[in-house]
């Protein structure tokens, strides 16, 4: 057990994002990004997610992002909430 529980935050409504977190297979974090604006913003979403994950100190988390065109501030907030819930004792 690496202490990561299953959690979700956000929604699949337009201009929002659904972040799903669960334990990864190994000790490393894994990240999967799906977005309706992947072409324009896929790389940016990925780097924001990596940054938030690093800041949270999480290890061994599998993070899945289903983006419906969320603003960057929304994306950050959803990621933080999802990770917080996944790590809550």
């Amino acid at each position, binding site marked *: 057990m690496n202490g990561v529980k299953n959690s979700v*935050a*956000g*929604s*699949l*409504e*337009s*201009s*929002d994002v*659904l972040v799903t977190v669960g334990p990864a297979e190994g000790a490393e974090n894994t990240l999967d990004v799906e977005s*309706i*604006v992947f*072409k*324009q*913003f896929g790389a940016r979403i990925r780097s924001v997610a990596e940054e938030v994950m690093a800041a949270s100190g999480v290890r061994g988390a599998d993070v899945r992002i289903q983006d*419906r*065109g*969320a*603003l960057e501030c*929304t994306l950050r*907030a*959803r990621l933080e*909430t999802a990770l917080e819930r996944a790590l809550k004792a």
Partner: protein
Amino acid sequence: MTSPLDARETRWRKRIDLASALPPGCSLLSFTLRMPAPLRLGGEYDRTAGEWFDELRQFLAKEGMSAPSYDFYVSADGPEGFCTIRGVGKDVKRRAVAFEETHPCGELVDVDVTCPDGSVPGRRELGLPPRRCVVCGGEAVPCVRGRAHTAEELRSAVERIAEGWRACRRERRSGLNAPASDERSARGVGEGRTFGACNDVKPPDHMELYCALIGRCAGTAVLFEAAAAPKPGLVTPFSNGAHTDMDYFSFLASAAALASFWERFARLGATFTAGAYMEEGSSGSPSPECTALLPLLREEGVRAEQTMFAATGGVNTHKGLIFSLGVLCAACGMLVSEGKHTSPEACAGRGAEIVRGIVERDFADAGKKKPSERTAGERLYLAEGVTGIRGEAERGFPAVIEVALPCLRKLLSDGAALNDALAETLLLLMTATEDTNILARGGREGERNVREAARNALDLGGMRTEEGVRAVREMEVLFTSSRLSPGGAADLLAVTVFLHLMETSGATEAIRRARRP
């Protein structure tokens, strides 16, 4: 304090919970405002949102999608509404998209549909165009995500649309807009916009011009057809033909009432393609799902019919033409937005793609209707397999492309007067089409009489010889006395004129030049 983000998460869970408890054959509809948070949360739209939600439910109920119960309140994310709708998810979503695209407030609302299995049918999977940005008319999501527009631009766009809705409501309440419709009125509202604040889908600027041009060609074609004489059995400036309930002025009133609609059909076509264009991996080829445009055209067509009936005091002057010319205006709009040539053949061909399958679909439903509710065309199809204007459109208007248009071109290039060329082309169309107007009133015998009389007049030289003109005069007497009115041929004459005008008015060339890099 709940934050907007929390409220949205709560709403999402509520959607899933409510959807999982839906009765069979129902889907869950959720309604939110589509505007930036400061506007959505400011309270100024709370009451209006409630009215919009009411209008949305009325709009759905007209299609038999009733909402037995609903819930509307203001959360920390702004006004939101929920209701259970009788209807399959995808059908309800289609209808909801029609509301978003055509209702005066449609641009400012988000209508989401959740199926009992939790799936959320989207515009893309239904082959419908993506949502447009309220400011620039481009695809909305990248604009929102990338904060492409300033708060001020967004605020003024939202206020403009809301004002358009208020103006439509004022007209509706003042009773000027006769049919009791809660939908967009035909009249333009607001400064400097042709049909103004009520029309939400906004193609790029040059497209506006071309759609206006398409609309003008169509409007002109309707007038030219009405003014041409002699037209045996039909209304002209000099005769009411076989009709007792309408005259030339009915046609002028109808033409004026419909004038703004043709451009709207063109815009529906143009914006539809623009949407399909932005799909990932698009190679610039037309959307394979042209048929997905037809429901939108039908929505507009119903409004056009209501406006026509209001203008003529309930007389059907142009119902058939609204269909065929509406489809062709949309076809032209699509071609233009793809940078393609709007030749008569291309327009008719694209029109056929838009209506593909319509004969089978429409008449399948006709069999289920009560006999008294069937249209003349439906009765004839069920009795004799006559496919009428639907069949003509689905085959790419062969009577127009192969018969009438070459005739009109030849007569005009030979120096015939426009009126005479139109009258003679009409004769030829009478010989070349199965006119459901004639079949409905005169049966097979009437139809044969019309064909033979027209053939005879043409053989005698048509409008170019005294004998021919005399034969046409005799047709007038015969058709009037036996109440035969070749309205189907007349509609195809207007279609012929439209395609001819599109080809010769410089429209096609202007479009081609503009698209050249």
